[in-house]
């Protein structure tokens, strides 16, 4: 019944873990062959795998877990998806209806626990409602601003003796839910007017643009506008990184030119981006001379942090399309040449600093490997065309800075919540969606240990992903902040003598491990790993532990205020 509904919804894959209250559903899984179930090793892994699948494909990821601990173990994964607006449906089984509220074995109020981190949630009170609830849940999860939806299913609702006429609804309509789709034309005209008047515009595109599949129309619009483009951490890939108008990522660890361009712009066109605190630095000092056009599907994101002069509500793809059409009609009023001085200024910023590591990079064996070099080699070996997942910390920022994404949905990381442990299971989800594509996980020795158990899942389902472990033998980003703000006191951020031998660990899970310690081994070692097409290879790369991520915004200041290296500030 439940599975029928999921199949009719187009679900092909479920990530899950069985348990007492889920047994009816698992028996039904056994007796069908339409939906494949992936057995993870921890429910958090199931949510991240479903999340990775959703980010790579644009379809909702589906998770199935039992009640109590099974349900609560999904919380970090649900919160991760919620913060990044990723469509996901979590089916959490529950104790039987007559036991609810009695502190029964493995009972948790999952609806209550998950409420602040879901877009919506449902409890099944009558098995006849299952098809309608499934239909609504997928509609809510994938429409408007996407997000996770939890369905709590008491055990008796899935009992095999429940027999009734099954019918899956063709369409769904919720009178109290009506996300905007097409923008208001008067706002579009105001936006185009502002674009025509601007001589220093910047397009600032985020995860919402990827969620809305807006890459083509954004590209087409900028073929007309010819404006510089920056992407948030979540937006990387929505505009080709190798395009000459691309500035790189902005924000906390953004490029010098991207932050300078935002600060000095006279017009910021925010496309599915929410002016997160990692982007704005101090909001009161943010881009003092800029007007803001904000394109978003979510009303509550607009003018939340930075006041918008023009607010365009709707699917950002449709809004961009409308702006493109209207700008085309007024093309004789638009002077592309007027942007030339702005481009010249940006070019100077690009040449002045860029990403500072280039200035001191040294690939001889007298120096330890630098983490940036690892990402650069991985980028070259994979021709910039792999699906790259990451965990959270320094390696994540290095990956975002040095792997240049030309296509959307290739860069898969936990931007909003910053969830360590996300990288490996999300890579499994991507590999299951695209078995023939190169999928790699850039991680650190801290993050990888948070969901390392999924190496076992990778063996069971033969998922030959490549794990690039940038091993600095410490919690690098924590250590960096301690170096910069706490007098170098490395409180609880190192564990050098207790790290596992990752090569042996990978081997014990049935995979291949490679250890790299010298610059001269780096390229050949990585090439060897990527040549093993049908094997999961864990590449453990020891890097210079003293390396910091730069540029870095100086806290509570403007976007102009950056640390460019350990001793150099703007």
């Amino acid at each position, binding site marked *: 019944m439940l599975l029928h509904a999921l199949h009719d919804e187009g679900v092909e894959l479920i990530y899950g873990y069985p348990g007492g209250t889920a047994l009816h559903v698992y028996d039904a899984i056994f007796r069908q062959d339409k939906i494949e179930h992936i057995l993870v090793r921890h429910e958090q892994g199931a949510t991240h795998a479903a999340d990775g699948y959703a980010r790579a494909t644009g379809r909702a990821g589906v998770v199935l877990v039992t009640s109590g601990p099974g349900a609560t173990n999904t919380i970090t994964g649900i919160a991760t998806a919620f913060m990044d607006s990723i469509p996901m449906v979590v089916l959490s089984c529950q104790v039987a209806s007559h036991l609810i509220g009695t502190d029964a074995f493995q009972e948790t109020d999952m609806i209550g626990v998950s409420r602040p981190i879901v877009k919506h949630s449902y*409890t099944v009170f009558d098995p006849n409602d299952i098809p309608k609830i499934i239909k609504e849940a997928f509609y809510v999860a994938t429409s408007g601003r996407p997000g996770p939806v939890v369905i709590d299913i008491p055990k008796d609702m899935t009992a095999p003796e429940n027999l009734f006429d099954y019918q899956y609804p063709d369409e769904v309509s919720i009178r109290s839910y009506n996300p905007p789709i097409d923008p208001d034309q008067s706002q579009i005209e105001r936006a185009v007017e502002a674009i025509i008047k601007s001589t220093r515009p910047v397009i600032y595109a985020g995860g919402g643009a990827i969620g809305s599949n807006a890459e083509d129309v954004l590209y087409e619009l900028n073929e007309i506008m010819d404006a510089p483009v920056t992407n948030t951490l979540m937006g990387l890939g929505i505009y080709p990184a190798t395009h000459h108008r691309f500035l790189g990522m902005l924000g906390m660890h953004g490029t010098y030119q991207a932050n300078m361009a935002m600060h000095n712009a006279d017009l910021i066109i925010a496309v599915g981006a929410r002016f997160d605190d990692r982007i704005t630095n101090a909001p009161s000092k943010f881009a003092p001379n800029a007007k803001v056009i904000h394109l978003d599907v979510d*009303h509550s994101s607009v003018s939340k942090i930075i006041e918008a002069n023009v607010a365009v509500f709707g699917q950002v793809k449709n809004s961009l399309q409308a702006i493109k059409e209207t700008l085309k009609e007024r093309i004789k009023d638009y002077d592309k040449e007027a942007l030339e001085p702005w481009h010249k200024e940006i070019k100077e910023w690009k040449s002045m600093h860029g990403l500072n590591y280039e200035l001191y990079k040294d690939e001889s064996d007298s120096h330890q490997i630098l983490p940036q070099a690892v990402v650069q080699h991985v980028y070259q070996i994979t021709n910039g065309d792999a699906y790259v997942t990451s965990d959270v910390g320094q390696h994540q920022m290095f990956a975002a800075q040095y792997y240049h994404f030309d296509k959307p949905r290739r860069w898969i990381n936990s931007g909003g919540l910053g969830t360590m442990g996300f990288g490996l299971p999300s890579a499994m989800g991507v590999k299951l969606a695209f078995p023939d594509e190169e999928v790699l996980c850039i991680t650190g020795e801290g993050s990888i240990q948070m969901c390392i158990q999924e190496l076992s899942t990778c063996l069971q389902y033969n998922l030959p992903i490549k794990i690039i472990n940038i091993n600095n033998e410490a919690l690098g980003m924590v250590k960096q902040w301690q170096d910069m703000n706490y007098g170098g006191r490395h409180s609880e951020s190192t564990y050098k003598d207790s790290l596992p031998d990752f090569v042996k660990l990978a081997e014990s899970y049935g995979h291949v491990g490679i250890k790299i310690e010298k610059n001269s081994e780096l390229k050949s070692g990585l090439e060897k790993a990527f040549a093993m097409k049908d094997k999961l290879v864990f590449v453990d790369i020891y890097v210079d532990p003293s390396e910091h991520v730069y540029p870095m915004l100086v806290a509570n200041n403007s976007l102009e205020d950056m640390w460019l290296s350990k001793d150099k500030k703007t």
Partner: protein
Amino acid sequence: MIKRKLILIMENKPGALVRVIGLFHQRGYNIETLHVDVVEDFAPYKLIEDRLDTKFESNQISRLTIQTMVSDILMRQILRQLNKLIDVIAVSNEEATYLKGVLLDENLL
């Protein structure tokens, strides 16, 4: 910061009220007073029915009156956040009404 009143019309479903109250806590707003009724007289909400092309039926919707201490800017944010909840149909303060994401100048409530 002054005390402001806002009114919500929402689906009378299990768990709907706690979503509204939870949102106040989650976003750091405080509720001063709260009043909840199940709506039986639909005459004042005819306009909402017309705009949503729906018909309210007995025991289907609730009306919440909430008083809270907030600034102007925060008030707008609260209205938008509340309106984003799937079970909330309309939310209004003295000046404006949000009806499922659409800002109306008239006060429907």
